[in-house]
């Protein structure tokens, strides 16, 4: 059984009588340990898919199983707990809390899972070490560069040891050099055995991931467009093995 199983998932918005199928009958499996990129033109439904996978949104139709739990009809409370325990989410705009310092930001998910202060701090520091930012723990997010902020966000996503990490255009707001560093970080995490799914516009990034999915008009495309998917697996990005 795959870690994530989507069966005939649709997300339908109704706007003034008009029906918008942001996702249209998507069936998809993600196995534990996979490193997937999701590509597709703007408005094709990538973020919608990510939100549904990340339990931030629920589908209009279809079934989803995550780590053996059916989440398409879970209650708000169960979803909150799944988001907290099993899922790490990385956003394009970092989404750190500006009033908290780096350490507190990373600690936040553990506060909601009721972990004691001491353990919280230890694990947050360990996660910061993983992204190489342990010496910035007392800084405010605004005092960090974009790439550093994104690394804090990744540390926060990892701190509760989730089953899977979803990243919606994690490099979309960064220059290509910083983006490369983030991509390397994901690659490293993937090599350590973490399951990662990331959305990107950038074919060069898609080229790095072992598996690529393309979405067009809310559907998973049969064949991945080679141009979009990084010219068949060569990338300008240098991956440090």
């Amino acid at each position, binding site marked *: 059984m795959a870690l994530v199983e989507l069966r005939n998932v649709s997300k339908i918005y109704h706007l003034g009588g008009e029906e918008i199928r942001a996702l249209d009958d998507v069936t998809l499996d993600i196995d534990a340990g996979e490193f997937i990129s999701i590509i597709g033109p703007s408005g094709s439904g990538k973020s919608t898919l990510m939100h549904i996978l990340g339990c931030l949104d629920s589908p209009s139709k279809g079934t989803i199983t995550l780590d053996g739990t059916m989440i398409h009809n879970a209650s708000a409370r169960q979803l909150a707990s799944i988001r907290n325990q099993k899922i790490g989410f990385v956003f394009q705009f970092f989404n750190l*809390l500006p009033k908290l310092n780096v350490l507190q930001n990373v600690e936040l998910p553990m506060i*909601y899972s*009721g972990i004691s202060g001491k353990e919280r701090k230890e694990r947050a520091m360990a996660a910061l070490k993983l992204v190489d930012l342990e010496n910035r723990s007392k800084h405010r997010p605004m005092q960090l560069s974009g790439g550093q902020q994104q690394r804090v966000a990744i540390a926060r996503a990892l701190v509760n040891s989730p089953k899977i990490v979803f990243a919606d255009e994690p490099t979309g707001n960064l220059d290509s050099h910083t983006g490369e560093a983030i991509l390397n970080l994901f690659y490293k995490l993937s090599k350590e055995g973490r399951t990662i799914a990331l959305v990107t516009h950038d074919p060069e990034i898609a080229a790095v991931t072992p598996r690529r999915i393309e979405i067009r008009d809310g559907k998973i495309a049969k064949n991945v467009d080679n141009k979009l998917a990084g010219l068949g697996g060569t990338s300008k990005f240098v991956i440090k093995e």
Partner: protein
Amino acid sequence: MNLFNSILVGFKEIWAHKFRSLLTMLGIILGVSSLIGMSAITKGMENGMKESLMAMGGVDKAITEEQDVPAYQQDLADSAPGRTMRDVYALKNSASLLRLISPQMALLPAMASRADKRIRPSELVGVWPAALEMDLHVLEHGRFFTDLDEEYANPVCVIGTAIRDELFGDPDEIGTEIIPLGQTINLNGQAFRIIGMFQRYESDVDKKAREYARLHPAKEKTGPKRSKGWGSGRNWAFRRKNLTIYVPLNTMWIRFRSSGTGTNGIPNPKLSDIDIKVKDVENFPEALQQAKNVMMITHNGIEDFGFQTQQGSVENINAAIRNARMSGGIISAISLLVGGIGIMNIMLASITERIREIGIRKAIGASTLAIFLQILVESVVIALIGGVAGVATSFGLVKLLGQLSPTDNTPIVTVASMIFAFLCSAAIGLVAGIFPALKAAKLNPIQALRYE
């Protein structure tokens, strides 16, 4: 997320918006301090009124009064006997529920004089020694009347301090206290020897003020000395009591009334008052009925008398206090309500400002309940800080009110009112926080994250 954490977050949030939070708290501060202030005023009023009530003789006292005979007895009006010593002896022998009977024979008009000084006493009455307890008098100097005084109708009197003040000098003005025992004064033209003087009756507040004035003498007053008239005493009940002159009942009869002084030359054995006190306040109505039955016999069935009790005043006082409490309560409730609305308003503004933060918190696993509690705790913390500040402010407010208050009843702050007001502020924070907290908790994470 435990409660302590939430409270800490709440404090930080408030600290981050100090000025805004202060303005919000102002409503609660005003509400709480006005609640405490109002209750302090009412309490002060209550005490003042009770003091006055005691000065008038307490609640177990009843005064018989002369009344027109009822309509159906109109033909008997001429033979109405009025209240006399017959009633007194009958009551003494037969009314078992009474503890104290004090006949009084007043002389009107009355005038006390010494050399060129004269004063109109509030009452010049002949009494039995029972009057001492009846009117809650305390004899501070000298002695009260003996059986011999009564028997021989001795020309002796016991006076209140205000009489002394007027005829011999006010200790506050001349600096030393004169105790005029053995001195002779004129009462309606007859010489009387002073054998006793009551204590000075005054409210606690006046007493304190007087003692303060004695310890910190004010500068020499200039200008003509003003006489202390009826209105100058801050509390007429006390002033009136200090202006009393008592003589033995028999003295009054023999020396004034039997010769017809003040009654157009006709001897008048009628008593001006028969005051009674009941044994047990619980049986007040029964005791009154018994006294009435006895007096109906001595009055040959003619109902030319009635009873006047303090029960009415007690009810009046209680009603006045109830009213004051009610209006004070309404005012404080309104200001607390306004404070609550202020808190709700600021919490709504605060969550609108923090929609994105709430979205982020939800995205990383904050449950609906956790968000709800976070906002609620913030609201309660604001209200509680406001409550504490309000309690502190109330001390100043009460001081101010004490200075401004028209009565001489100093407001009294009670701990109970402080605790109550504080709990009120907590409850208001809770209630005001519920709606914003619900609103925040129900936010959809995706929409919240998209919010700019």
